[in-house]
């Protein structure tokens, strides 16, 4: 009888160990080092390209990314200082928010430049404890100006400063935001708009940066409608910027519109649209142009269900969201690309899934990249000048706004359907559940670039990979001990 009891106990203990043992192993295996280099992270994916000889992944030597800057001797054409503070502040509409400001407000000042001008921004951290950076979302800046803490620079500590310099790209709509503890700092105010004006701007040119503060939707920090004067018969441009973690839709009542630019790149041959909404993905931009009716009737651009930009005098009625959404895949007129996506040097796959597991010791349902949890994710490795094709697949049950730093990519097809409209260049792509996008770009901006989900909570949970150029290294490290936490 005691022997039976002992045997029973032994079996029970063994069964327990069989369950707890693997869990404990997975837990300890997921713990991140206190300090680590992005270059040692995950595994190199060369996309079928040749090994460049010197191993850029985890290797030493090579060009330091800190040397990748704009012309140091060139004087700045547009120069300003942005001072960040962590404080309780008042929105334009009077509501108070516990968050972050730039030059005393949120959003920070709209930076305006002309194509080719050298923009110089001095970022000063007054008192933000976790440190800050600025990332120029959609601007293909030199790598050292990209503002990713622990990858292209150290986070700017309280009392410190950092100077960003870059040449303004072709006219378009962009934005800037912190890339240090970004899921917290962006949600709570550390961002602003950046626009590069065309040689002859339209009569009415409005930035409409939409953001949720404490769950309250705002346009340019105001929870009321934005009214803009627009004379009958003139053209008005509305630059929609979505700084949130989820996509939002916009639609126009009172006149047809044209979608003239996506993510800071002009659409070729945009045609008038009157019965469809435009989806602006998280981090994405969409520029609408509206020919104001000769009758003098006002036009309403609705952003989500809550707020509008009202062009002209009066209060046009609200309308329900159109059943159809404008599909950029077939919108506008085709135009030749400056490169041949068919002759790709590298072919990558970025498949997003979801499964239970541990990330840095925390259990949960986590996003995977090609089946792996962070940090065991691919390091997409390219050489300068490569033509790169990438298949982005989302099999994770939720939408992901995928954002590649330092490059614009073009959509070739979605779910096997080829793009037939204007070349659809993007830096932020709304990849819905079950969707598969083929994209292509030219690796023409060397450095180490984040390629992540711009639902910044997802990025913080590990939905972040990197694009690395062979022969480049970063001296910066991230991890709990380093004070650098880019997501």
């Amino acid at each position, binding site marked *: 009888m005691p022997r039976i009891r002992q045997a029973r106990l032994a079996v029970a*203990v063994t069964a327990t160990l069989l369950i707890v043992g693997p869990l404990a192993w997975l837990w300890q295996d997921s713990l991140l080092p206190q300090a680590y280099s992005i270059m040692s992270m995950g595994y190199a994916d060369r996309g079928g390209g040749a090994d460049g000889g010197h191993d850029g992944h985890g290797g030493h030597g090579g060009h330091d990314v800190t040397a990748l800057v704009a012309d140091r001797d060139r004087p700045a054409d547009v120069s300003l200082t942005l001072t960040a503070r962590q404080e309780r502040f008042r929105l334009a509409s009077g509501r108070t928010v516990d968050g972050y400001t730039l030059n005393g407000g949120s959003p920070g000042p709209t930076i305006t430049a002309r194509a080719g001008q050298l923009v110089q921004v001095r970022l000063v951290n007054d008192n933000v404890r976790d440190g800050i950076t600025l990332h120029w979302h959609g601007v293909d800046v030199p790598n050292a100006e990209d503002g990713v803490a622990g990858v292209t620079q150290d986070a700017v500590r309280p009392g410190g400063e950092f100077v960003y310099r870059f040449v303004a790209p072709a006219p378009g709509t962009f934005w800037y935001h912190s890339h240090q503890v970004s899921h917290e700092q962006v*949600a709570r105010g550390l961002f602003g708009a950046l626009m590069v004006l065309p040689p002859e701007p339209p009569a009415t040119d409005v930035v409409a940066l939409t953001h949720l503060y404490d769950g309250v939707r705002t346009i340019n920090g105001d929870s009321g409608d934005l009214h803009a004067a627009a004379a009958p018969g003139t053209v008005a441009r509305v630059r929609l910027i979505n700084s949130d973690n989820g996509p939002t839709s916009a639609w126009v009542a009172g006149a047809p519109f044209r979608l003239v630019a996506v993510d800071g790149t002009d659409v070729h041959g945009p045609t008038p649209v009157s019965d469809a909404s435009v989806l602006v993905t998280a981090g994405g931009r969409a520029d609408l142009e509206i020919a104001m009716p000769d009758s003098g009737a006002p036009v309403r651009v609705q952003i989500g269900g809550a707020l509008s930009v009202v062009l002209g005098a009066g209060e046009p009625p609200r309308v329900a969201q159109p059943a159809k959404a404008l599909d950029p895949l077939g919108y506008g007129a085709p135009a030749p690309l400056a490169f041949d996506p068919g002759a790709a040097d590298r072919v990558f796959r970025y498949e997003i899934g979801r499964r239970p597991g541990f990330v840095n010791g925390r259990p949960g349902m986590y996003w995977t990249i090609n089946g792996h949890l962070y940090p065991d994710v691919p390091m997409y490795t390219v050489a300068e000048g490569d033509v790169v094709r990438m298949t982005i697949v989302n099999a994770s*049950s939720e939408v992901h706004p995928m954002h590649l730093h330092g490059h614009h990519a073009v959509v070739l097809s979605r779910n096997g359907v080829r793009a037939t409209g204007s070349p659809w260049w993007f830096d932020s792509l709304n990849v819905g559940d079950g969707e598969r996008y083929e994209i292509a770009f030219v690796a023409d901006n060397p450095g180490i670039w984040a390629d992540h989900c711009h639902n910044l909570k997802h990025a913080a949970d590990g939905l972040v990979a990197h694009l690395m150029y062979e022969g480049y290294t970063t001296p910066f490290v991230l991890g709990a001990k380093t004070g650098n936490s880019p997501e």
Partner: protein
Amino acid sequence: MRTVYKVLAYIVAAEVIVQAMMIAWAVAGLGLWVDGGGVFDKSVMESEQVPFTEVAGIIVHGLNGGLVIPVLALLLLISSFFAKVPGGIKFGALVFALVAVQTTLGYAGHGLPVAGLLHGGNALVLFATALYTARRVGRATAEPSAEPARDQVAAQG
């Protein structure tokens, strides 16, 4: 250990009640908020900044269902190895399996709404099973044939 097993099973059943209450509370709060002019979209859904109090129901539902209940079910299963309840391992494993199914259906529902339909039904199956698992502890051990039954479990184990 038998008490631990029994209490854990009761807690799992109680947690199912909490889950149902939380999600119904959140949906009611959402309805009222929209009625007052609020707009619920993906950005609000992804925002951790709470536009209405009852959204806490969704957060609690997610934490409970994604972490707390699976851990409780795992502990129930482990306690069953030691509890010497006749048939206890079988029911511990059944509750654990139902929790696994429930969690999977819950997450799958984000992309496949019909999984949400089954999630609602499976919740009641899980509740009934967890409750039965707890209540049969006393009965199973009070039976006169308790001793041989326990040996059988050992042989199975």
